[in-house]
């Protein structure tokens, strides 16, 4: 859907801004964390690095307990292409590779590398790229891949996969919208490391031919906007355009920001790349710049620590694997009532304070009692339709809710459940406080599980049928052999009978014995054969 009349709402924007449906204006709570400069905290006593800290496959550990590692050394390799390298966030000793509670709403355990820092924080030998201009596309991608760069906007999608497709891409969008309340890490990163971020965007743009660069940013970040303008002038990167969008949640969603900046909607089941667009977060740009010009792998990220119970709110460079407990202590904070990883809208409550920070962690909210208003009990739906007006994806949240709670998943899918971005705008406006997003998540995860089960059932059916067929075949072949043996016997007897009846009787007896022996032989062979078949079919599947 293309709007014919772009609405120039913000004067600062250098490109026309379009509109998105729905959206909400929650209290921002950003000022409490974006006042102080970026800081670091003392190292934790123990780092718990989750090997499934990215979208895709779990990384494979290449160190073992007792190994000493330097900061930036590879500790886990990719399992296939859809995975990421992991590096030691500091120097020290690997004390265990074991299951620990990880940062995941389930509160389940998964494989982690536990690292005991030696306090020296000593880097391994870094290999910065000296002649960036001379590198070809593949070499740049390889460097990004080896440095473990993943999307830092929240989904941790491995960057090398996103960057792989280059045909038909005409616009690079840098997502600096940061629309979720409380979170300010992208804002601060842009203010303090403006040039690095812009250079990172420039490196990405070199991977494509003739590409436009747009930085999409909300108009509640005037300092970052000024910083970009200044740095752009100093670096002479006049090709970078600023798209300043009005502050509204969730304008930082990938599809929403695309619609705001280009007026185009990403169709159902399609990717932004199908529209010739690619989007990266500012944090990812910074990480890519560090990976190439400094040779530094992704071992830490900027995390917003905030919430009513956080005594020193702000943005901190946190090495991956730092336990949240350590962050609470290091900022002299009170034990939070609720500990949220991510923002108040899309984040999730942590199962324990012992979990380590992962690449996706942009914010930790140490909330006080009643701060996030999640204690309200759900009341019956009054069918007011407020959720529909708030939905940025133009879905029918109420309809989805009815179907999800009645386990009518096929109907929920018909109403495009999977186009829901789980932004929580519907639940925010719901006067009955129905946890709508939780219903959608329940429906989505059940549908996904059902699909996996379906595939498994299909495989079992195939194997069952293959086995039935094999048993049939073996039976048929056995019958055939017996028939042939009987025929041969009969023939031999007949031929012998023609010459000498006495001799014939003896011959017939001999032939019978021989045939019997043969049959036995072939039976054992056949048994072996069927065993071998067993093994083969198992090996093949």
């Amino acid at each position, binding site marked *: 859907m293309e709007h014919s009349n772009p609405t120039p709402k913000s004067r600062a924007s250098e490109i026309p801004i379009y509109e998105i449906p729905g959206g909400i204006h929650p209290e921002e709570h950003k000022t409490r964390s974006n006042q102080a400069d970026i800081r670091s905290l003392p190292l934790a006593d123990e780092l718990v690095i989750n090997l*499934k800290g990215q979208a895709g496959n779990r990384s494979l550990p290449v160190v073992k307990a007792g190994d000493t590692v330097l900061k930036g050394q590879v500790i886990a390799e990719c399992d296939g292409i859809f995975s990421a390298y992991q590096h030691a966030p500091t120097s020290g000793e690997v004390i265990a590779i074991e299951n620990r509670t*990880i940062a*995941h*709403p*389930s509160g*389940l355990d*998964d494989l982690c590398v536990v690292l005991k820092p030696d306090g020296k924080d000593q880097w391994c030998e870094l290999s910065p790229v000296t002649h960036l201009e001379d590198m070809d596309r593949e070499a740049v991608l390889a460097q990004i891949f080896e440095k473990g760069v993943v999307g830092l906007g929240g989904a941790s999608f491995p960057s090398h996969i996103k960057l792989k497709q280059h045909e038909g891409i005409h616009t690079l969008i840098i997502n600096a919208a940061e629309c979720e309340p409380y979170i300010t890490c992208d804002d601060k990163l842009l203010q303090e490391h403006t040039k690095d971020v812009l250079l990172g965007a420039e490196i990405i743009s070199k991977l494509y031919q003739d590409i436009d660069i747009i930085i999409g940013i909300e108009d509640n970040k005037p300092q970052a906007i000024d910083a970009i303008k200044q740095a752009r002038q100093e670096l002479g990167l006049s090709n970078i355009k600023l798209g300043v969008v009005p502050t509204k949640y969730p304008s930082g969603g990938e599809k929403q920001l695309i619609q705001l900046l280009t007026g185009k909607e990403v169709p159902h089941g399609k990717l932004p790349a199908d529209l010739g667009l690619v989007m990266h977060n500012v944090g990812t740009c910074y990480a890519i710049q560090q990976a190439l010009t400094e040779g530094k792998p992704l071992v830490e990220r900027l995390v917003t620590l905030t919430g009513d119970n956080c005594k020193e709110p702000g943005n901190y460079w946190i090495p991956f694997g730092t336990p949240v407990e350590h962050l609470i202590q290091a900022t002299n904070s009170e034990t939070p009532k609720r500990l949220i990883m991510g923002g108040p809208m899309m984040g999730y409550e942590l199962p324990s304070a012992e979990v380590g920070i992962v690449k996706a962690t942009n914010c930790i909210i140490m909330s006080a009692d009643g701060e996030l208003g999640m204690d309200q*009990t*759900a*009341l*019956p739906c009054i069918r007011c339709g407020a959720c529909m007006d708030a939905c940025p994806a133009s879905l029918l949240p109420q309809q989805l809710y009815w179907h*999800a*709670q009645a386990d009518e998943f096929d109907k929920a899918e018909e109403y495009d459940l999977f186009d829901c971005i789980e932004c929580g705008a519907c639940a925010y406006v719901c006067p009955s406080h129905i*946890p709508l997003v*939780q*219903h959608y*998540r*329940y429906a*989505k*995860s*059940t549908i*996904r*599980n059902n699909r*996996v*089960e379906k595939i*498994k*059932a*299909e*495989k*079992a*059916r195939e*194997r*069952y*049928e*293959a*086995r*039935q067929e094999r048993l049939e075949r073996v039976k048929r072949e056995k019958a055939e052999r017996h028939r042939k043996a009987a025929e041969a016997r009969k023939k031999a007897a007949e031929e012998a009978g023609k010459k000498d009846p006495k001799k014939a009787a003896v011959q017939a007896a001999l032939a019978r014995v021989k045939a019997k022996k043969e049959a036995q032989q072939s039976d054992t062979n056949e048994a072996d054969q069927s*065993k071998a078949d*067993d*093994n083969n*079919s*198992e090996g093949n*599947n």
Partner: protein
Amino acid sequence: MDLITAVIILAVLGLVFGGMLGFASIKFKVEGDPIVEQIDEILPQTQCGQCGYPGCKPYAEAIANGDEINKCPPGGEAGVKALADLLGREVIPLDEERGEEKPPSVAYIREDECIGCTKCIQACPVDAILGAPKLMHTVIIDECTGCDLCVEPCPVDCIDMVELPQTISSWKWQQPDQMIPVKELEAS
């Protein structure tokens, strides 16, 4: 004359339509019974035989011929509901005699106790057990449907059914409480 014309016309019409029907019956022939396929789609393909038939397909055929839809414990209540939807029958509770709905599990062979008799290999309906005579056997977990059929034939009782642990990838969100909150008022 009229009579003969009428007879001829009817005869010709009959031949034409007969030909068309004959053609259609060959051209649009339906292989197998589609309803059996649809029922088989819903059944969980554990091939456990708890329904009393030697596999999911035979049970699907039996259902199509009028057998009850509640004889499949691995399919559970959800399976009965899906079958009822498909066939336009009443949803009935699972037949308890057939067993009960159990959490997903797989067979596990205690390998040092296995004597290599191949009995379990012969019992496995989906060829998920690997081994050779007088050599240790093992279960390919990814292929095991958890049907229990290998447990019984084992002469040394070295096969356990182990519940599959929940992992990050198999975990799913729980449905929020559906209860309408009830507040008890204190008697004044």
